[in-house]
């Protein structure tokens, strides 16, 4: 899958690039308005990650010209200027989603996947791992050919685990992505433990060939 990142903070750009390459994306990047415009006009991407404040011009202008050229281009706005107006305007011009900096990579990945799933043929609506498959569109989890009933949060947790099997998923990331934007970071996050316990029990009872392991004090990973 081909991704273009337009972001003027080189360090941030490099981090995102590293992460997405680890996730086996094909990544190209631009760190200013002109460079971004050049790439957008000449190549096609599955998704463009776009910063709003760029040297040389506004990301929103870039978004406009991009939409003039190709209405179907998927765009995810990344912005430090997390203002309501920018968000509304960006979505009105035609961005698919808006992610405020700083964000968790897991969240970035989930957003990219869901945008691509919605907009292109490449998007897999069903994620498979071992004998478990998860259908995002219909929100159904199957173990072998048996449906596994999960509540909303259990489903979301499993989705995040399945996006990156064998990778660490931190408690803070889980709390924020599954339990909502307004979770106070400083809240005691131990409540996640009992939720994970329930999910593990359900997976085990359904004889799924995967398990969730605790990484002590940090988070969990799917194995």
């Amino acid at each position, binding site marked *: 899958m081909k991704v273009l990142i337009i972001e003027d903070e080189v360090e941030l750009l490099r981090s995102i690039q590293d992460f997405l390459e680890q996730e086996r994306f094909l990544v190209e990047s631009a760190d200013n308005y002109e460079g971004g415009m050049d790439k957008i006009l000449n190549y096609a991407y599955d998704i463009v990650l776009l910063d709003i404040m760029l040297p040389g011009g506004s990301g929103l202008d870039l978004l406009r010209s991009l939409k003039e050229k190709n209405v179907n281009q998927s765009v995810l706005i990344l912005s430090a200027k997390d203002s309501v107006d920018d968000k509304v305007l960006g979505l009105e011009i035609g961005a698919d989603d808006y992610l405020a900096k700083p964000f968790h*990579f897991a969240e970035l990945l989930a957003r990219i996947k869901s945008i691509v799933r919605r907009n292109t043929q490449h998007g897999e609506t069903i994620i498979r791992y071992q004998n478990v498959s998860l259908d995002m569109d219909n929100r159904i989890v199957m173990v072998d050919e048996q449906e596994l009933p999960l509540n909303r949060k259990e489903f979301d947790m499993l989705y995040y685990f399945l996006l990156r099997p064998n990778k660490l998923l931190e408690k803070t990331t889980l709390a924020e992505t599954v339990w909502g934007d307004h979770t106070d970071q400083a809240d005691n996050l131990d409540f996640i433990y009992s939720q994970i316990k329930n999910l593990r029990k359900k997976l085990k009872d359904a004889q799924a060939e995967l398990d969730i392991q605790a990484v002590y*004090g*940090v988070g969990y990973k799917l194995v």
Partner: protein
Amino acid sequence: MAVSVKYYTNRFIVITILIVMAVWALLFYAILMDEVYDNIDDGLKNQKIEIIREAYKNPEILENTKEFGVNQFKILPVEGADDELDKNRFSKEFIYMPYDEEDEPYRVLRTGFYSKEGKAYSLEIRTSTVEEDDYLINLAISLGVLYVVIILSILLINHFVLGQAWKPFQLTLDNLSRYRFGDTASFKVVPTKVKEFEELNQQVKHMIDRNEEVFESQKRFLENASHELQTPLAITINKLELLMNDTTLNEDQLVKLSGAKAALHRMVSLNRSLLMLSRIDNNQYVVNDLVNFIPIVRSLLDDLEDIAVFKGVELVLEGDIKEFNVNFNRDLAQILLSNLLRNAIKYNIPNGKVVVAIGVDKIEISNDTNSGALNPDYIFERFYKGSQDNYSNGLGLSIVRSILERQHEIELFYKYESGKHFFVLQKK
């Protein structure tokens, strides 16, 4: 004791006019009396000349005017006259006047002359003069009346004219008391024809504008500073995240990295809260529509259920009302209710309860506590923490207050009753 400017000058006017009039009356009296005596004396001197001429022409009057009669003079022969015989000596005497049946003041001229034969005679001429005491009393009475009339006129003029003149000042004061910081439109300049008040208006307006400017730039500063922090925070957090994906790290290293990241996340949360505050204060949430609070409460309770269960707190929703519609910003309604519910769970006791009671025009959120009543003067302040609490950034309730300050639909009350905190959202 403060006295209105209308009456402030009055005591000075009363005293000053009294002194001025008293001095004036004394001078007036003295000058007038001097003039009166001068006139009377001139008349007496003139009479003397006429009497002496008559005595030369007609010497028998020397013999038959030994007593005062109708003529009001008497001539008496003098033995052993000296040089000063014909000197004029004036005096004032009280002489019985049958008309008034009492002694009345007379002006008397004592002098002398030599007859045609060279005999010395004394001459005494008298005439009725002003009754000084009566005159003084009359003068005092009329001056007193004049004084009272003048003072009353001044008081009345002051009362009405000054009252009218100071009206713009009073209005300016009223407007100032209604002025709310951050809302320039709440102070209106009062049109006035008085130069000083016009100046006051200009200065007050100027001062308000300047303060608002400072306030505005302070708000902008907060917003910009928070924004500028986002990117370095994002870089640091994401770098740590990349590092944590390294499978060669051992658990101890992971825990340390995770600790660093958690601290950074607290900073992000604090930063987001500050940004939210400044955004609310900068009126960036303007889109209002009719928001039903009930589904928001329900979905929040659903979201918070897990945390509550973990903390051993029971969430109870009371009342079967389906709609609680308020003209509100949807995002802010979400934040408002979320902050109140989170607090109710966070500051609860083990096996406590959070009760959300929904009425027709109010939503009551109560939670068990053993902290005693909170001081409503402080809990809405920024960074106020009831007890030293590491899990709180101290901004939750001040965000609640900022949200409520920017609308006129609902208000929030706090009360403490029998071991429970109550936060009540009441429709106005």
